[in-house]
C-alpha cells in the first residue's frame, strides 16, 4: 500500500443484530464487502439512497457502529494500521485525533449545556495536542476560515443561540481543530434550507482545501457531492454499484443505477395555459397563529382544473400555513377563498361534506399520515364508504380499481402500513385522496422524505392521475427540481409574502427579483464547478449568514 493513503477499506462487512419477537437476536448483514481508498487531502463521496449503508461505512472509519451495528469482517486501515484491532483504549487515541466526525444535525450533535468553544477544543485538549490558549486561537482561525460571523466571540455562545447553518460550520471547525488526517462528513447539509446549504457547502469545501485534510463526504444528493468530492462511490443495498472519479461518474456513468441517479429530476412537464375559470381563488389571505406574528401576508393565488400550482419556499416562508388555511384548519384573519365560484367557509368543522370531499390532502410523512392499526383496505375504503355510502362488494371493487390506478398489487389491501415501503405508503396516501374523487388535492412536500428515484415515480404517477382525473394540485415544496417537474404555475413565497407568482415559464425566467434569484441559484446542479461559478454571481446573501 502506498504511504499516501490515509484510509484504506478492504472488503468491509457490517452486520446488525435484529431482535426477534421471542427475545433472541439475529445478525443480518447490511454491508456486503465494500472496498475504498482515500489518499491524503482527497475527498471521497459516498452516495446512495436510505438503507444503502453509506453512513454505516462512514462510521466504520472511526470503528464505530450505531446501536446494535457491528463490523463483522474486512479491514479498515487508518494511516496504515487496522483500527478494528486497536481495542478500546487504542480507539480512544485515534478518535478525535486522527479521524473526526461531522454529523447531519449539528443542533442535536452539540451538548446543549456547554459553551461552543469548550466543545470545539475538547478533543484537542483531551489528546494533549495543544494548550488551551493555542487551541482557542486555532478554533477562532477556523471560525474565520469557515466565514462564521464574529469569529472572536461566537464560541462563547451556547448551541441554541446559534442558527442551524452556523452550527453546522462550528461542528466542522470542531472536527478540524485537532488537525486530523481524515474527517467524515455525514450528510452535513441535508437538514438545512437550500439557500443556507450552499454557503455551508462552500465553507466546508474551502476549509478542506485550506487544511488539506482528507474526507469522506456522505450524502444522498449526487449534485451536492459532485461539488466537493474527488472520487465518488455509488452504493445500493450495502454493495458498491460504481466507484470512480467524480468526472467519470457525472459525465460518463457506466451502470444503469448511476445513470438513473444522474438523470433523476430531469422530467419536466409542459406548461399548460389557464383556459377555463379557476377552481379556487385565494384572495388576499392574511393569517397567523394565536395573537402572534403574521405568518401569511396578503397572499392571492389561483388554481385551475387539471393544472398544478407549485408553492415554493424555505422553512418559515408560510407555504404550509397556506395549506392549513385552504383546508380550514387555520381560519384566515383577512381575505377569503372562493371555491367553484362560491365563498368557502373558513373553519373546517363548519364546511359542507361536499367541500370536504372536494379538497383532499396528501402529507409529507406517509408513515404518520396512516393509522398503523388499520389495513390498507380500510384506509382507502373509508373515504368511499364515508362520502358515497358504498359498501360490500362494490366497495371492494372500487378499492381494487384504486390500487390498480396507483400501480400496487390488489392483495396489499389486507396488509398494514408498517409492512409497506416508503414509496408504497405514499402511493396509498394518494389513493386515499383519490378515493374521495376530489377537485383539488393539496400535496404538502409529498416527495421530500423519499429517495430521488422513488420520488420521481410518485411525481410521474401524480401527473398521470391529474391528466386522467382532471384535478387541480396545490403542490407545496422547497425543491425547485420538483417545481420544474410538475408545475404549470409557480408561487414563490418568502417570509409570508408572495415574492413572485405567475406561469412557470415566466417565474423561472429572468429578470428575477433578488430572492428568486438566490433561491434558483442555490439548487445544486449536476455538473462540476457549478459551486464556484454560482458563488461569484449571487446578488443576495442567504438567511443563514
Amino acid at each position, binding site marked *: 500500500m502506498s504511504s499516501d493513503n490515509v484510509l484504506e477499506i478492504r472488503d468491509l462487512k457490517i452486520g446488525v443484530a435484529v431482535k426477534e419477537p421471542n427475545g433472541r437476536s439475529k445478525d443480518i448483514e447490511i454491508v456486503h464487502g465494500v472496498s475504498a481508498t482515500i489518499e491524503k487531502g482527497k475527498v471521497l463521496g459516498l452516495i446512495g439512497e436510505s438503507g444503502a449503508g453509506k453512513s454505516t461505512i462512514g462510521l466504520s472509519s*472511526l470503528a*464505530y457502529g450505531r446501536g446494535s451495528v457491528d463490523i463483522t469482517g474486512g479491514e479498515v486501515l487508518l494511516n496504515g494500521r487496522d483500527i478494528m484491532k486497536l481495542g478500546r483504549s487504542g480507539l480512544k487515541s485515534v478518535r478525535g*485525533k486522527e479521524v473526526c466526525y461531522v*454529523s447531519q444535525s449539528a443542533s442535536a450533535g452539540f451538548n446543549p449545556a456547554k459553551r461552543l468553544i469548550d466543545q470545539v477544543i*475538547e478533543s484537542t485538549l*483531551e489528546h494533549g495536542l495543544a494548550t488551551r490558549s493555542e487551541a482557542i486561537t486555532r478554533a477562532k482561525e477556523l471560525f474565520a476560515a469557515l466565514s462564521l460571523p464574529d469569529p472572536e466571540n461566537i464560541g462563547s455562545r451556547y448551541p*441554541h443561540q446559534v442558527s442551524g447553518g452556523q452550527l453546522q460550520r462550528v461542528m466542522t471547525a470542531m472536527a478540524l481543530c485537532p488537525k486530523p488526517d481524515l474527517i467524515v462528513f455525514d450528510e452535513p447539509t441535508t437538514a438545512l434550507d437550500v439557500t443556507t446549504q450552499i454557503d455551508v457547502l462552500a465553507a466546508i469545501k474551502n476549509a478542506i482545501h485550506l487544511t488539506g485534510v482528507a474526507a469522506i463526504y456522505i450524502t444522498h444528493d449526487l449534485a451536492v457531492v459532485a461539488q466537493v468530492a474527488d472520487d465518488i462511490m455509488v452504493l445500493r443495498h450495502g454493495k458498491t454499484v460504481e466507484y470512480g472519479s467524480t468526472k467519470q461518474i457525472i459525465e460518463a456513468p457506466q451502470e444503469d443505477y448511476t445513470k438513473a441517479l444522474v438523470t433523476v429530476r430531469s422530467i419536466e412537464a409542459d406548461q399548460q395555459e389557464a383556459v377555463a375559470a379557476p377552481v379556487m381563488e385565494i384572495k388576499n389571505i392574511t393569517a397567523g397563529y394565536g395573537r402572534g406574528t403574521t405568518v401569511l401576508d396578503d397572499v392571492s393565488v389561483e388554481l385551475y382544473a387539471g393544472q398544478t400550482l407549485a408553492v415554493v419556499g424555505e422553512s418559515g416562508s408560510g407555504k404550509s400555513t397556506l395549506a392549513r388555511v385552504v383546508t380550514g384548519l387555520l381560519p384566515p384573519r383577512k381575505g377569503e377563498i372562493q371555491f367553484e365560484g362560491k365563498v368557502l367557509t373558513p373553519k373546517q368543522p363548519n364546511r359542507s361534506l361536499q367541500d370536504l370531499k372536494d379538497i383532499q390532502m396528501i402529507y409529507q410523512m406517509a408513515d404518520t399520515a396512516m393509522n398503523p392499526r388499520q389495513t390498507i383496505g380500510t384506509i382507502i375504503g373509508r373515504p368511499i364508504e364515508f362520502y358515497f355510502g358504498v359498501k360490500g362488494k362494490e366497495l371492494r371493487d372500487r378499492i381494487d380499481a384504486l390500487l390498480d390506478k396507483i400501480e400496487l398489487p390488489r392483495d396489499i389491501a389486507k396488509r398494514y402500513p408498517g409492512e409497506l415501503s416508503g414509496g408504497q405508503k405514499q402511493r396509498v396516501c394518494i389513493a386515499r385522496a383519490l378515493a374521495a374523487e376530489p377537485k383539488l388535492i393539496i400535496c404538502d412536500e409529498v416527495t421530500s422524505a423519499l429517495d430521488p428515484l422513488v420520488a420521481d415515480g410518485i411525481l410521474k404517477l401524480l401527473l398521470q392521475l391529474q391528466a386522467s382525473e382532471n384535478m387541480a394540485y396545490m403542490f407545496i415544496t422547497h425543491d425547485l427540481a420538483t417545481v420544474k417537474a410538475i408545475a404549470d404555475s409557480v408561487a414563490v413565497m418568502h417570509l409570508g409574502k408572495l415574492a413572485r407568482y405567475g406561469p412557470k415559464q415566466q417565474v423561472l425566467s429572468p429578470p428575477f427579483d433578488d430572492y428568486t434569484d438566490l433561491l434558483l441559484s442555490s439548487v445544486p446542479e449536476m455538473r462540476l464547478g457549478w459551486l464556484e461559478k454560482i458563488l461569484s454571481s449571487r446578488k443576495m446573501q442567504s438567511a443563514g449568514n
Partner: protein
Amino acid sequence: MSGALKLIAQRIALGLLLLLLVSILIFSGTQILPGDVAQSILGQSATPENLANLRAELGLEKPAYIRYFEWLAGLMRGDLGTALTSGVPISEAIAVRLENTLFLGAFAAAVSVPLAITLGLVSVRFRNRWPDKMISASTLASISLPEFFIGYLLILFFGVKLGWFPSVATVYEGMSFADRINTTVLPALTLTLVVLAHMMRMTRAAILNVMQSAYIETAELKGLGSFKIIWRHALPNAIAPIVNVVMLNMAYLIVGVVVVEVIFVYPGMGQYLVDHVSKRDVPVVQACGLIFAAIFIGLNLLADVISILSNPRLRHPK
C-alpha cells in the same frame, strides 16, 4: 437570566395559589360531605340537645365560608385550632411530631438519594450486564412489596431474632443523637427500601435517555472515555430529570411515612393523623392533611425551580 427569574417567580406564585386551593379542598372535603362533624363525634345515639350544644361549641351554625376564613386566618397566625378529642391546641401537639417525622424522612432521604443515584449510574455504566439486570429485577419486587411487609420482616430479623435494633421506635425529647439514630434505623431502612429501587430505576432511565442523544455520540467519537462522557456530557443534561425523580420519590416517602410510623409505633405526624382519622377528629385531620400537602407541593416546587435553573436555554436566552 431574567427569563429564568421570571419563570421561578411564576412557579412560586403558582405554588402558593395551589396551596390556597388545597386548603379550600381539604376544608370543603371535611365540611360539605354528608354527615356533620357533631353527628359523627357523638354517634347515632346522640340526643338532639347534645348535638345542638356541640354544634354551637364548634361554631357549626355559621356558614361554611366564614368558618373557612376563620380557619385560614388561624393558620396564618400558626394557630391550627383545637383537637376535639383531647381539647389540646393542635399546634402544640404537632410541633414535636412534625419534627420527628421530618427527622425520619430526612434520615431515609439521606441514605436513599445518594445510594439510588450512585446505583443508577452503575446500572447505566454496566447496561444490560448483571448489575443492571439485578437492579431491574429488584425494582419489580420492591414496587410490589407493601411497606408493612418490609417493616415487619426487618423487625422480625433485626429486632426480634438478632436483637440489633429496637423493634419499637420510641423517641423522646432529650434523647441523644446517637440513640435517636439507633432507634430510627429500622423505620428509616424500611422507607429506604420502599423508594430505593424505584428511584434507581428512574435515575437509570433518565440518564439512559440523555445517553441516547446525538451529542453523546459526538463525545464518544472525540475519543472520550465512558466516565468522562457521563460526567461532562450526560450528567449536566440529566440534572433536571434526576431532580424530578428524586422529588417524586420524596413525595412517595411522605405517604410511606404514615404507614411506617404506624408499624414502628413512631410518635410522628403520620401516626397522629391515622389515630385521629379513626376518632373522626376533623380539625386534627385537616391540619395534618394540609401540612402533608404543603410539604408535597414544596418539594415539587423545588424540583421545578432546579429544572429551570439547570436549563441552559433559560439561563442564556437568545
